[in-house]
């Protein structure tokens, strides 16, 4: 083994027309606007950067407490606080453009029209490589939840956005549905170039002393290692239901975790909560993925994708 000259495995993948250096990128809302993590991680190493979710107007977010640790996971009800799409374009994009890494802008709307309008404003922004459309955030009462859990509504809003952007369009699905294959197909038929999943699972925790919910919003989104088996299952199901590429998300902290998603057929993965635990997590995952490929004699990471043996 150690005598063999180590061959550098080919790590790049293609998703929705984007060529990524490797399949690792942050999950929206866990990596700020990129800048926050630049002191700890070379953004040029990443497959892509995915930004915090943008809305048409700035959004203040929910009351506090907004987060709460659970067993091997966390709940959040941030309420999609963001600077608004115009401020983002003006103040945050320039920073990201200095990197040689695709920028995927996550966005959402309170109405169909807002979705369309945000997409349109991002359409001619140089440096925006793709859009990721959040139809699934469980935190905002009049936000994505309606779209993501109702296949007809999902189809409609994705169709509308599709008309207003020429950028590659990734639709991010919610796990809080009976049959995710139906929403996945709806999004695909409406023109999504790729699907990403999962967003957080709806959860709740109670402070037994005060008898109050631990989140001001009562209910929040569960993320972190605890949810990984659910996410792997959903990605497995979606891969079987659609032809467009799938990006796997949910509880990934190590290369081993990312591999589960790639093996069931995800073309790339996003790392969320793990960034909070270790700001260098993605760099470690990338290095360990390469190492794994070397050890297993895999010349091209694409060989791994969808290699599940049933």
């Amino acid at each position, binding site marked *: 083994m150690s005598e063999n000259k180590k061959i550098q495995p080919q790590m790049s993948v293609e998703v929705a027309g984007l060529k990524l250096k490797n399949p690792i990128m942050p999950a929206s809302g866990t990596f700020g606007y990129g800048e926050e*993590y630049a002191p700890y991680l070379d953004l040029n190493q990443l497959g892509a950067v995915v930004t915090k979710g943008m809305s048409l107007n700035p959004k*203040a977010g929910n009351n506090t407490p907004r987060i709460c640790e659970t067993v091997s996971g966390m709940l959040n009800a941030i309420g999609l606080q963001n600077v608004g799409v115009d401020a983002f374009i003006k103040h945050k994009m320039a920073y990201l453009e200095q990197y040689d890494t695709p920028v995927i802008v996550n966005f959402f709307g309170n109405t169909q029209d807002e979705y369309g309008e945000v997409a349109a404003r991002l359409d001619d922004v140089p440096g925006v490589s793709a859009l990721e459309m959040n139809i699934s955030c469980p935190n905002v009462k009049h936000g994505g939840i309606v779209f993501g859990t109702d296949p007809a509504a999902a189809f409609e809003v994705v169709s509308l956005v599709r008309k207003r952007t020429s950028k590659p369009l990734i639709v991010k699905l919610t796990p809080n549905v009976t049959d995710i294959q139906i929403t996945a197909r709806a999004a695909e038929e409406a023109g999504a170039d790729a699907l990403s999943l999962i967003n957080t699972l709806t959860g709740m925790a109670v402070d037994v002393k005060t008898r109050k919910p631990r989140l001001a919003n009562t209910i929040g989104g569960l993320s972190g290692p605890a949810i990984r088996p659910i996410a792997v299952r959903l990605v497995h199901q979606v891969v079987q239901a659609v032809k467009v590429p799938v990006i796997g998300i949910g509880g990934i902290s190590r290369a081993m975790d990312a591999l589960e998603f790639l093996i069931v057929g995800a073309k790339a993965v996003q790392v969320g909560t793990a960034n909070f635990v270790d700001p260098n997590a993605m760099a470690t995952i990338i290095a360990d993925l390469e190492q794994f490929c070397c050890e297993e004699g895999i010349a091209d990471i694409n060989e791994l994708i969808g290699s599940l043996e049933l």
Partner: protein
Amino acid sequence: MKNIKTIVLSNQEISPGYFRMKILSPGYCESAQPGQFVMFRVQRSLPPLLRRPFGIFRAGFLPADCDDMPAKEFIEIIYKVVGSGTEIMEGLHHGDPVELLGPLGEGFDLGAPEEEKILVGGGIGLVPLYMLAEKMVENSKVRLLMGGRTRDDIITVTEFERLGVETYVSTEDGSLGEEGLVTRVLERKLDKYPNAAVFACGPMPMIEAVQKICDSRGTSLQVSLEALMACGVGACLGCVVKGEGHSDAEPRYLCTCTSGPVFRAEELNWEKEAANNSECGGCK
């Protein structure tokens, strides 16, 4: 601001339930400012999932092993055992691997030289005041009002006194120092030194009482706040507090981790903040 994989140097109980941990921390002596904090990773594996925020008590150099080696830097944190993470921390020993992200946040503004300084620390809230006092004693008179429920909550008095800080202790049960709330002492001191600037850290009810007193007298006040934090770097937006001018119609949130943890009293929205923070009660 960096993440270092390092080791615990020592970890000792200094008062029932309070521990002082020394951690090898290259780079901190130059960079750490009074009032800044670290995100501490308790252990490499779960649990806990998230890091825990702790104020930096002090940064220093270890006695050099030999003459031609650069001296090693350390920081000290002092923590109270309150839940799952600090319970695990209690069991850490010399040599155990931990990770530090920091130094993080905006610390204290030292204020004008020669100005009288009054520091108010409740329980574990004393922690970030030590480095502050270290800097201030160089050119100001510094008085420290320490409050706690019982004498067990009064920690590191000697350390402050060694700096030349005048200390005043009060406990709610009278088991050490004056019986009563630290805010009563504050009012007396402000009567005597009406131009002093106040720097406070402690439980939210104490902070609020201090704010009321300073506000009514027009006294300059900086406070160090706690908040539930996931990232510590401004990415998760979990740690916000309501800023000055905040209303339901026009919410204004500030990140405690990047705009704080130290705020000038004027930056914050005091009416709302109270109701909100007492709701929190930690997150076990």
